[in-house]
């Protein structure tokens, strides 16, 4: 199997690279910084004796054609596409974000994914046993006043994946989309939560097990389904009082 991972240098992407390499996948890893991706390539190649390639790519502004050529000239046609990359400014949103930061969030979390799926769609639909995996967020379950721009992008991505599923319904491509909860990664390092943070390796194993299945949307870890069910049930008159933000500040 040949897998392309977008956002492979840290957190879930890194754990997924490790899991797939250990299962013998040939990998093409993409991340924003060559200093992070090159050690990943060498480490996985040496330890798992599999072909691993990588390149640094700024998802805020890139050419999908160049990425396509790089992937093709190294591992050839891919079997699995994993869209793991994400960016968020947890403590800031709306007016607290600059225009550049808003663009950054939209480009990395949403636009880049659509561009990449579109360019690799031909590869993914021309033979059997292929997968396209999207990573969403529990933040997209119900809109709230924090992390909204990020959550909107993830909701948009989820919608795009639903469309993709419809588009490829008569092909052998399997689509999987996950709403992932808090992970024990650098992104959530300072975040305190009553709900336990899941290990990226645990989630990566689940993503691997999901290959070959059609999954329109699934929560990872599973308990988020229950939490979000209750969260969505909270009536508006109560919900509007949760985490009230003073717009004057």
């Amino acid at each position, binding site marked *: 199997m040949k897998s392309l991972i977008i956002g492979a*240098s*840290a*957190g879930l992407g*890194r754990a997924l690279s490790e899991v797939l390499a250990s299962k013998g996948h040939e990998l093409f890893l993409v991340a924003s*910084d060559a*200093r*992070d991706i090159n*050690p*990943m390539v*060498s*480490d996985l190649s*040496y*330890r798992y004796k599999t072909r691993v390639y990588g390149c640094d790519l700024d998802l805020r502004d890139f050419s999908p054609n160049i990425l396509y050529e790089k992937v093709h000239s190294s591992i050839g046609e891919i079997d699995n596409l994993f869209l793991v990359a994400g960016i968020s400014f947890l403590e800031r949103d709306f007016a607290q974000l600059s225009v550049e930061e808003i663009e950054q969030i939209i480009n990395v979390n949403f636009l880049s994914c659509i561009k990449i799926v579109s360019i690799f769609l031909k590869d993914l639909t021309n033979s059997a046993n292929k997968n396209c995996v999207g990573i969403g967020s529990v933040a997209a379950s119900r809109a709230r006043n924090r992390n909204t721009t990020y959550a909107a992008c993830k909701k948009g991505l989820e919608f795009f994946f639903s469309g993709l599923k419809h588009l490829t319904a008569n092909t052998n491509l399997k689509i999987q989309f996950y709403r992932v909860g808090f992970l024990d*990664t*650098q992104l959530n*390092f*300072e975040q305190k939560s009553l709900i336990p943070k899941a290990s990226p390796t645990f989630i990566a194993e689940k993503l691997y097990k999901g290959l070959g299945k059609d999954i329109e949307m699934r929560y990872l870890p599973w308990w988020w389904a229950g939490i979000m069910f209750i969260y969505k049930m909270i009536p508006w008159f109560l919900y509007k009082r949760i985490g009230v933000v003073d717009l004057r500040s």
Partner: protein
Amino acid sequence: MEKKFTSLDRYFSCKAKYIEPDRYRNLLTLDNTKKYIAQGSGISYVPASFGRSSQVINLRSFDRILYFNKDEKNIVVEGGITIGKLYNFLTQHKLCLPVQPGHPQITIGGCIACNIFGKNQVRHGLFSASVIEIQLYHPLHGVLSLSGDENSEIFELTCGGFGLTGIIISAKLRLSHIEGDVITHNIKVDNLLDTFNALNDLRDKSDLLYTWNDLSTFGRKFGRGFIVSGNFSRSNPALRESHSFKELAPHNTKLFNPRIFNRVTTSLLNNVYFIQNTRLRPNREISFFEFSYPVADKILYFNMYGKKGFIEQQILVQRDACEEYLREFESLVKQHRPLVVLCSCKAFSGKRKLLNFNGDGIVLSIDVPNLQGYKDFFVQLDLLNIKFSAIDNICKDSRITKEVVREQYKEGYDEFKERLHGFDPKRLFVSELSERLGL
């Protein structure tokens, strides 16, 4: 984020700011006005990887193999890689690090920073002997290449520099062939003097050489024990590729953790251990993993000291002073009667430089519960060490003071401090250990 840290001996605890970068852009952009200290697995006996006034930078994400050449027997790894991860990779190629610490959870950065010694110090020297090159990051200097030829002074300062010169990003290491499992023979000894003499006789003949002595029983049996002398079974390299082990977690202190070691239990356990190793199984074959990491399955041992932990003293006694030192050491122990739970000796050879724990002689290690009543014993022991020019391993003793280290290491201390301040006038890398030692 603030986190509570505890040294492995549980002698010292404090809260410190903590970050866990997972990308180089976060690691290599540290502000040069703040204080830091790098941390690998954070399982040093002493508080060398944290401090009240420093931000702890955990390097567990920087644990990758960057380059490997089987034919030339060398490897380049990131500083946060654990010895265990490296072991699992290298054994597939029948290679190993010549000098290995006692637990596989320890990182390469930690081995370099403490310049550890392995199972056969006489044959392999200190860890720095296997280090070809280091990439070091310091906010004032950027990333520096250190080796015997390039920035050699900083290289020397970094090997055994307690992490005070900066963050060890990566290191190129020399490897050696694994020769197989180890066949050990336990030789019974009656006292510490016999032990020292036997160690001196066997030091060049064994691949593995250490002793176990019982100092918990006074009278005729005081100091009795056995010497473990081992050699590789060159005909039988039955290597298993990966091993699991229990992780040490000194920072996660349990609510209920009573001290199990007391005079009765220690004496009983030592008697059982002595009989088991001298009568029931004096000869046995141990795996290379067990040989390399004797502490890997002994997590319970550390917990048995209770919440207050223990004090370890590792004393390097000069070869020509051994006999006289032992006489005074024994009378000191008999006079103060501390509960010595563990006593072990090793042969040593080398030349001391800066604050490295090195020299020609015998290393005597003792583990004693951290009890208020033993304070005077340790003060007297410090004086004894100074009298005989013996040195205490700084990386093992959380209690040792600046004054004692200065007296023991003499010009080594002054030179280390002078060179460190010359390299880093702002002294950005600070730990509890460096503050205690006035570095």
